[in-house]
């Protein structure tokens, strides 16, 4: 009888230890995952920011004034005159 009691006590002690270690392990896991989450969030933010920068860059390059200047000066393009326009099909 006493042996059974001692065994139960030991089992309970082991269970307590296991649960304590379980808590430590879970907390550690949670910290590790949190660090990963933060890193991914930062990466997402950085990508969004870069997207915004690229959008701005694209808008600046597509600026009508710039295209107009480049076309006229660098490429020597002109608006076609009315007599140069032919209507092919209505």
């Amino acid at each position: 009888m006493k042996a059974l009691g001692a065994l139960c006590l030991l089992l309970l002690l082991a269970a307590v230890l296991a649960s304590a270690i379980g808590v430590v392990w879970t907390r550690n896991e949670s910290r590790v995952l949190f660090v990963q989450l933060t890193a991914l969030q930062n990466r997402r933010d950085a990508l969004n920011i870069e997207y915004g920068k690229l959008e701005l860059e694209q808008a600046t390059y597509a600026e009508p004034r710039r295209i107009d200047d480049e076309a006229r000066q660098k490429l020597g393009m002109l608006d076609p005159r009315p007599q140069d326009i032919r209507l092919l099909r209505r």
Partner: protein
Amino acid sequence: MVLVVGLLGLASIGLMARAFDLQVVRKQFYQRQGDARFLREMPIPVSRGTIFDRNGEPLAVSTPVLSIWANPSEVLENADRIPQLAKVLGVDADELKDRLAQRADREFVYLRRQMVPEAAQAVLKLGIPGINGQREFRRYYPSGEVTAHVLGFTNIDDHGQEGLELAYDDWLSGKPGAKRVIRDRMGHVVEDVEQVRAPKPGRNLTLSIDRRIQFLAYSELKSALKKYQADSASMVILDVKTGEVLAMVNLPTYNPNAVNASKPAQRRNRAMTDVLEPGSTIKPVLMAAALSSGKFTPTSPLIDTTGGHWYFQGHDIHDTHDYGVLTPTGVITKSSNVGAAHIAMDLDTSLMYDTYRAFGFGNSTNSGFPGEASGYLKIGRDWRPLEKAIMGYGYGVNVTVLQLANAYATIADGGVMHDPSFIKGDDNPPKQIISPDVARQLIQMMETVTGPGSTAPEARIANYSVAGKTGTAHKADAGGYAKSSYTAAFAGMVPASNPRMVGVVVVDNPQKGSYYGGVVAAPVFAKVMEGALRLLDVPPDNIGRWYVGGPLQGAGGLVGSQPPADAPLDDAPIDGGTP
């Protein structure tokens, strides 16, 4: 022995009581104190939505910047590093120290807002305790001054201040979220506890504005302003079928990327906030009332304007030339004030007032733009005879450029009025204002204005038919009208056979050269609309001709690129003095 045990027992009871006290009785107090040390509610920042033009080109973009803030007490603890900090920030070291000392009781002080991320990183790299960076967003406008008035600008807290940035501020800015976190002493976040509020990111906005047409209008308007030395100019282009605003440009303008350098006069969206007396551009609206009344058709009855003067109620209503007997169409073609005044007097006052009102004069256009003016139209009941007469040729009424454009768009769309809108795909319920037949007749009458013997041959566009009306109005001055200060205007629709776009150009006070609408404003219209028609892929409807019914020029194309040099008839800018 018993004594020792008794003392130990007392001590343990004391300990238990204390433990009970701490864990149960004072639990809240200690927990709150602990939370105050490391639990913080942090905002989750959201960026402002991008504003696109109708083709998906970004017009306003938010870019991230870093703002440097300091916890004054912590920084003052390491006061020896302040000079270094001041140098990187670019401020005076003593001034910085004073500023921090003044706010020593606070926990948060901005040192420099909206720094470029690279410069801000240089500050943070110093590693001075108490200095942190906060992510903020700043608006950039790639088109700069071309779209300045329509878009408006934001303030340093990223809230819209003027224009569409203000009108749609809620939609664009979204709401920052909040989350509770555990922070360590250095300020690093150790653990996310919970999300208090989900962030609602700013939503994007697609405008009806076409960036290319906007730029075209801006550059043509700018050269006209310079050529005629005018004070200001505006142009509005509307899409006829939907009422959407394709372009709205004003000069003088400013650079919204550097608002602090601009003056208030440059920031006004004149096309919507400034009113003008329309002058002869209102004659088609008068004619709409006349045709609707049944008393007039495009060709009858004949109106006698012989002599070119009509002395009415002590006032001299006159034309620039004696046009003799005119049909109603002739009144439009020659822009006869005498004819218009006669027609006005022949109409029922209530019909004329209701028509003007129905065309939107005196009301806001419901475009949703902040600061829009409603113009002025006196109540029909109170019109005196002379006021009625002069309202026939455009004085005594105040309209904005947008209202004028909207009125012409109504005529262009077969008498159907749409509320002008800045948003693409905004479905405004249309209203039938006049019958489609009357609208068709009006457009035909207005086509003669770009034909021979009229006021706007400069508005001709090769291969397209153009319908419109010029206007040259005296500007009101203290105690009457200014002797030599005019508003030159042209309002037109293209192509006349099936109008797709309406454009109104108004040039304020041209000083050099001419001041007539047909000379100053009409060529701007022609150049801009020519480009706009090509950009929107509208097929030509008047092949090989310069004006409707004109001679066919050359086989398969026009001979020469300049329209035949008709001297434009002078628009009649008379003293429409208020009685």
